[in-house]
């Protein structure tokens, strides 16, 4: 090879002098981004979440080309997409099930962070931005669920927007402002469509911040100890390849739902057009909200119920300080591991409670589950950090990895 630069290299250099975007990408997610070598498959879910966001944005853009945000036409336009638009059924089912899979992936991503202590110093801001992304996702999903204008769309919108009427004094004015009228109606649907289209791009912005905040301290790892340069390998090609493999497996599962069980996660009632004069007998939110819905219902006071529901998410912002342990990874915290699993089971029970009609013993179970949920963060996490004796940490990732390789 001659030392002469090829014309392509020269063109690239010329461009990089003016806008160094290639090297910026290389530093962000390429060969110049060092990552601990010992990440396990639980670390795949961040890239999967990004993939799902892309799926949602692209399928959504094409759905919007055929959707009509008007109370008399919205339901019909969705059926038009399902029946007449070429591949409309596929795009809609990908979008509708995509929301569920996006949440599944993000929930696993969050649980991974909670188990391995990825929220602990110096990654608190990274954790916060992640929680903001989660909140924005919840809002986006709620707005999107209203758009098909089925019975559950309408009554879900009514119940959720009415949350704000709990605010003393100005609550009712706020609800009227949100509705643009005196009930959920056409102005509501129209603005929900506008905001549903906007919020995903807010999420894209937050993801940039999330990745930026990730690059300052670098990625955590299953051992939870700080990685030295010798412990790291470049993101490209190693983790890109691993993410591609994880993505392919995930896509098989996602497609199985889209092609064979497209309505399994939805509510049958939402194939009935919205009727403002008839409330369905049993209003349930989508599965990803159920634990929070259970917390809301477990407290027999409107304002306190709402405070508890929002508090259940807001308390996560304080988790980096509520967890007083010096050790990050749950692998070295034998007692924490047990309580972590119990907490996950508690959330699953709350999710189940949220899907049941609030009769008989259900509200009591919900109340106990709610108390445990908050107790886990407010009591167990701080106390555990003081009383638990962690297992000895390895001196370095390399040492641990090499010992395992022997």
């Amino acid at each position, binding site marked *: 090879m001659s030392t002469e630069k090829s014309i392509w290299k020269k063109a690239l250099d010329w461009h990089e002098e003016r806008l160094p975007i290639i090297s910026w990408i290389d530093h962000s997610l390429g060969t110049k981004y060092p990552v601990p070598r010992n*990440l396990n498959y639980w670390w795949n879910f961040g890239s999967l979440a990004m993939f799902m966001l892309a799926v949602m944005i692209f399928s959504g853009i094409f759905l919007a080309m055929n959707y009509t945000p008007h109370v008399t036409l919205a339901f019909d336009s969705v059926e038009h997409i399902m029946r007449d638009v070429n591949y409309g059924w596929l795009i809609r089912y990908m979008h509708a099930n995509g929301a569920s899979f996006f949440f599944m992936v993000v929930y696993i991503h969050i649980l991974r962070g909670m188990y391995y202590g990825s929220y602990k110093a110096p990654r608190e801001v990274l954790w916060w931005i992640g929680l903001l992304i989660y909140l924005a996702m919840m809002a986006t999903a709620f707005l999107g669920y209203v758009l098909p204008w089925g019975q559950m769309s309408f009554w879900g919108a009514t119940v959720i927007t009415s949350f704000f009427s709990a605010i003393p004094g100005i609550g009712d004015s706020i609800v009227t402002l949100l509705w643009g009228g005196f009930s959920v109606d056409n102005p509501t649907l129209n603005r929900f469509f506008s905001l549903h289209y906007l919020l995903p791009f807010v999420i894209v912005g937050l993801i940039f911040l999330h990745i930026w905040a990730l690059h300052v301290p670098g990625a955590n790892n299953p051992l939870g100890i700080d990685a030295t340069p010798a412990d790291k390998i470049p993101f490209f090609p*190693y983790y890109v390849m691993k993410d591609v*493999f994880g993505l392919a497996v995930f896509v098989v599962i996602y497609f199985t739902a889209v092609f064979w069980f497209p309505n399994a996660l939805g509510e049958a*009632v939402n194939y009935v057009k919205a009727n403002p004069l008839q409330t369905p007998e049993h209003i*349930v939110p989508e599965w990803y909200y159920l634990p929070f819905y259970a917390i809301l219902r477990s407290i027999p006071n409107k304002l306190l119920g709402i405070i508890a529901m929002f508090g259940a998410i807001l308390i996560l912002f304080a988790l980096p300080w509520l967890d007083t342990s010096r050790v990050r990874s749950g692998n070295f915290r034998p007692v924490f591991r047990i309580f972590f699993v119990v907490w996950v089971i508690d959330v699953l029970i709350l999710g189940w409670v949220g899907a049941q009609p609030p009769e008989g013993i259900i509200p009591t179970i919900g109340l106990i589950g709610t108390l445990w949920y908050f107790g886990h963060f407010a009591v167990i996490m701080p106390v555990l950090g003081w009383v638990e004796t962690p297992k000895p940490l390895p001196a370095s990732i390399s040492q641990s990895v090499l010992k395992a390789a022997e």
Partner: protein
Amino acid sequence: MKKILLAATAAFTFTAVSAQAAEHVEIPKEKWSFDGVLGTFDRAQLQRGFQVYKDVCSACHSLNYISFRNFEALGYSEEQVKTLAAEYEVQDGPNDEGDMFKRKAKPSDRLPKPFANDALARMSNGGALPPDLSLMTKAREGGPDYVYHLLLGYEEPPAGVQLVTGMSYNKYFPGHQIAMTKQITDGVVTFADGSPNDAAHVAKDVTAFLHWAAEPKLEARHSTGLRVTLYALIFAVLAFLAKRRMWKNIPH
């Protein structure tokens, strides 16, 4: 007492939507040609089911999202669809004189509704609104199994159950009191192809037809799904092998 009231409510609100009934009735699973990874519709069954809809259901129930052109998917030719459409009249207009007029339906027309509006439909049916059937098998918990068993689920009310006037007792309807009387009986239609026309077969055929109406792209979904998923599976295997090779000399 509360339970009876709840039952009555569910019955009264015929359109109703109750995903969760006051009590849970187990709906038996049926075998359908469209079940399974590559399930397809049985064209002959769909045609029979359409005949049942036309002769029995369409007196009260609309099929709003279906156009005549869609019936080509049932195995009818373009000519047959044209002839079929021409049996119906639809309103069009206004013409040059500003009048609305009736004309023969074309394949691109939607199926005409049995009642001009919901108020008329309610008035003609003792206050109960016969729901549109285009999405029926997707709009109820239990799907096609529910619709099939509902059509056959008429029984004498158990002792102690007081039926509201005009209501029938149905084992599978949430709350058990339904405004629709029993429609699917032995021999209610005679099929051109000589297929059995006892109540169970008729109910099965019309339910299959309704499931086609609710999910007309089901066959495309299944066949596309198989190809796409197989492609992704092979890609996953390749990606796994490539990943393993790349990481071979990296202790991790």
